């Protein structure tokens, strides 16, 4: 791409959709149709590069790919397709990605119609002042009802139905029309090419040779290699070593011009200095105002992560450091547990983030890990007048030294079909939520606003919300404030011994129910041992619940057909391996999932 694209021929857009409506297949189809990637090189869902992204069908990192489109009007357009994370944990990252666009393709499944996440995605895009191109996908399916869905788009989302394009990500039908619609419906970028450089950082990744590489959108001015620049919020100067675009392989360019999206090689070795949402400008001649909306990514959820075998403690530390390189939001400090030995208390953006990191640690670094129940950051006001932040139940001071405890609250929004309002209300009551407002968006969807403690949300709220609304509800939230709550520490005793790693902080009114539920759940999870294992829940010295894992009575007595002793021996060795993956505490072997049992306690 040697020729510079006229700004009027640039289109920056995201593709957004309810889960499984076919966002990634449409992205892939666009890459193919614009000859960015040859059909034979297509791996499914090309933009999701991590294994975990491809397997789970979720996008974790933002990604921007440039494709050149020869439109029917004879012009060649520069399309910058910005892929956004698809989970509420990454709402901030999504908002930054959308801020880099002028348009959004809103994908709606022709067989399912408008769903809750379609609405919330549409609202996000509208709030970001984006031009929306509705795309009705999967029209190749026999059960497709494009006309009904077209009506829904107009009724529920108040988008002009005539703009909707019918496509099939599977067959490629209609993708050409979609590209044409993007040309006509999405505005070209506006900005001042001669003003001091102003570029928004959408995401970044670490390259072992070149340091941190940032994905940026240029709003004013331009970026060229050799420029002395600065990250405004981080106040970090750097020398721009290279600029370019992904197609989807990196292709260096002379310049990223006003309105364009691409990458900037910063040469910086510390990923923490390059923050999503920060603004890049010239060191000597900075822009007047940074891009709006920046804030520090703050960990919301904390959990203890321990190697099952303590000799792998250093390996775990190394692994965390390696992951942090591409995920600066990851923070941790050493933690010691009587039961689990040495490990780390790790902070995450949310539950999915936690799951993904744990899975990557185990898979990419071959570690056997135990994660303890997630906690939030409690503000504990002590009788001596000081306040400490507590992210681990073990660190909670004795009750007599606590004046009061405050916990983080969220402002949350659920969008749900009217039929499920009652179910959501009940869920809110169960989770200490306080309803603040309710708006009927249409006769098909209601927006419910409420305040809820973060601690409630990270337990099982999201799963419950999905199951009680048959998957229709979508959830958004943001931090509100700290509020005083009546909280206690619930301890778990196995065979009479307190297991510190199983303790958690809970609202007093829920302690009994949860204590009972947890004892029952642990009874299911902990396998029978040679001896009976009593499980007790306690607040302070008071036992509030109990259950018992019965003693193991009889194991498999396999027949040694024809003297096949080897086979029997292999079974014994397999059994031993299984035990190794458990944590021995006292005489009790505890499986990894026991430490997350609190997430699996049913509310009933």
């Amino acid at each position, binding site marked *: 791409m040697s020729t510079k694209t006229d700004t009027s021929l640039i289109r920056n857009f995201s593709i957004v959709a309810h889960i499984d409506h076919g966002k990634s297949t449409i992205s892939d189809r666009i890459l193919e149709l614009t000859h960015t990637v040859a059909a034979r090189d297509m791996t499914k869902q090309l933009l999701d590069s991590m294994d975990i992204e491809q397997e789970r069908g979720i996008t974790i990192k933002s990604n921007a790919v440039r494709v050149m489109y020869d439109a029917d009007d004879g012009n060649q357009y520069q399309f910058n397709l910005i892929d956004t994370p698809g989970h509420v944990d990454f709402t901030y990252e999504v908002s930054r990605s959308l801020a880099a666009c002028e348009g959004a393709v809103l994908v709606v499944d022709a067989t399912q119609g408008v769903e809750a996440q379609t609405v919330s995605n549409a609202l996000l895009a509208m709030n970001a002042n984006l031009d929306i191109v509705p795309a009705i996908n999967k029209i190749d399916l026999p059960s497709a009802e494009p006309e009904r869905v077209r009506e829904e788009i107009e009724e529920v989302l108040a988008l002009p139905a005539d703009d909707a394009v019918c496509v099939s990500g599977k067959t490629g039908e209609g993708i050409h029309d979609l590209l044409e619609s993007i040309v006509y419906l999405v505005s070209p970028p506006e900005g001042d090419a001669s003003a001091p450089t102003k570029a928004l950082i959408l995401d970044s990744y670490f390259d072992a040779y070149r340091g941190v590489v940032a994905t940026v959108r240029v709003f004013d001015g331009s970026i060229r290699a050799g420029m002395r620049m600065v990250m405004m919020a981080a106040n970090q100067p750097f020398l721009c070593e290279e600029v370019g675009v992904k197609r989807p392989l990196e292709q260096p360019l002379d310049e990223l011009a006003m309105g364009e999206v691409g990458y900037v090689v910063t040469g910086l070795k510390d990923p923490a200095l390059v923050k999503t949402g920060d603004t890049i400008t010239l060191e000597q001649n900075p822009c007047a105002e940074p891009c709006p909306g920046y804030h520090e990514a703050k960990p919301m959820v904390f959990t203890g992560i321990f190697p099952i075998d303590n000799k792998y403690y250093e390996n775990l530390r190394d692994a965390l450091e390696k992951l942090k390189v591409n995920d600066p939001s990851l923070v941790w400090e050493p933690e010691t547990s009587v039961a689990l030995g040495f490990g780390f208390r790790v902070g995450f953006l949310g539950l999915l983030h936690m799951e993904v990191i744990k899975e990557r640690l185990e898979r990419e670094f071959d570690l056997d890990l135990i994660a303890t129940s997630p906690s939030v950051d409690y503000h504990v006001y002590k009788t001596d007048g000081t306040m400490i932040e507590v992210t681990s139940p073990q660190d909670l001071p004795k009750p007599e030294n606590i004046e009061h405890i405050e916990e983080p609250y969220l402002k949350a929004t659920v969008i749900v079909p009217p039929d499920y309002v009652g179910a959501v209300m009940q869920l809110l009551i169960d989770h200490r939520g306080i309803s603040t407002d309710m708006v009927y968006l249409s006769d098909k969807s209601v927006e419910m606003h409420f305040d809820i403690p973060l601690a409630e949300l990270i337990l099982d709220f999201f799963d419950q919300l999905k199951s009680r609304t048959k998957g229709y509800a979508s959830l958004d939230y943001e931090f509100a404030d700290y509020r005083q709550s009546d909280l206690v520490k619930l301890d778990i005793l196995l065979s009479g011994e307190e297991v510190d790693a199983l303790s958690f902080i809970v609202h007093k009114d829920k302690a009994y129910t949860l204590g009972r539920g947890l004892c029952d759940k642990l009874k299911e999870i902990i396998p*029978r041992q*040679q001896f009976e294992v009593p499980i007790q829940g306690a607040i302070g010295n008071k036992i509030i619940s109990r259950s018992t894992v019965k003693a*193991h*009575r*009889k*194991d*498999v*007595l*396999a*027949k*040694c*057909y*024809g*003297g*096949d*002793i*080897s*086979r*029997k*021996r292999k*079974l*014994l*060795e397999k*059994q*031993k391996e299984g035990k190794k993956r458990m944590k021995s505490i006292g005489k009790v072997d505890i499986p990894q999932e026991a430490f997350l049992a609190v997430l699996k306690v049913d509310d009933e």
Partner: protein
Amino acid sequence: MSLTNNNSPVESVGALYVHIPFCVQKCAYCDFASSATCADDPAIDAYLASQLSDIRRFAELGLLRECKTAYIGGGTPTILGTKGLMELVGEIRNVCPQLEELTFEANPDTLDDTMLTNASTYGATRVSIGVQSLEDIELKELRRVHDAQTAQNKVRAAVASGLDVSVDLMCAIPEQTDESWQRTLLDVVGMGVDHVSVYPLAIEEGTEFGRLYLGMQPTWNDEEVQARRMIAARDVLEEAGYCRYEVASYAKQGKRCLHNIAYWTGITYLGLGTGAASMLNPRQYELVRSVYCKLPHIHDECPRIRISLLGREVELLSSDQATAEDLMLGMRLVDGVASESVPASTRTKLIEEKLARTEGNRLVPTTRGWLLGNELYGTMWDIAKGEVQTLSW
């Protein structure tokens, strides 16, 4: 000097096993190598011929000179028919001059009277009948071919034939109740058999039951049920004068199965046929390898070699591992092992966990230890150091 002329006893194995991998129908729980076919399948004759020829070749090499016990197992050996089965029995008797016990396994549906009358003539001493249960509803669930009446008739005929008779029973199976198990046990005892083997059903991968129940822990196979039934079997059989000499085997005075005991006491054995396993010393291994040329050459000195023909695997055990294995296997027997041969820490652990107790200078399994066999044997095997070296071909 050729190897075959060497008279040293280490050349000969102590036991011979011949596997007949054919059945009329595959049972729902069975994961052993066997394929369902009809009795007149020509493949069966061809298979028999090749086993007979192998037996002769090994005999010529001296491998069977000191062999004391032989066992024809299945599958279903009786699918060979009287002629085929007697040919095999006769050949084994013919080439093993020291033979004290020759057992053939039988299924009630293919065990006929001519077999029983001919067996002793040809040299068999013992028949082991796969009865499993004497309740029709249970047999049907197991996909057994025979019904209870047939089983009873055949067991009675076998007892009358003068052969030593063993019966295999299975507990913790679908439809079984404590009462029906009691009935089966009492009926078997009433028929005057010499030996009874009792196993709880294990749900194995790759079987019909595996597909239906694996990981589901059906109540009929619950570990409490297994424990209760195994204890009930012990009580009924001991009351009737049978002695439990091995975790799963009960025998009347003088009727213990020598071949069974050989497996647990470090006696070398040669296994022939599809699913057979062998345990050999290095010299025996080289002799077997001179016939089965695909077996890998062994460079290192090792005291114990195990071959799995089906798994195409040879295991080389160090003397350390062989000792641990002997201790592990010894705990299947009522007499256990010599206390002094068990490291003190292991002994203490087993006694503390009530898996074993001392009796004179022996460390013997407790009832609890036999029920929790994997704990008991696993602890013994833990004495072994390092992984077992494995070669495949």
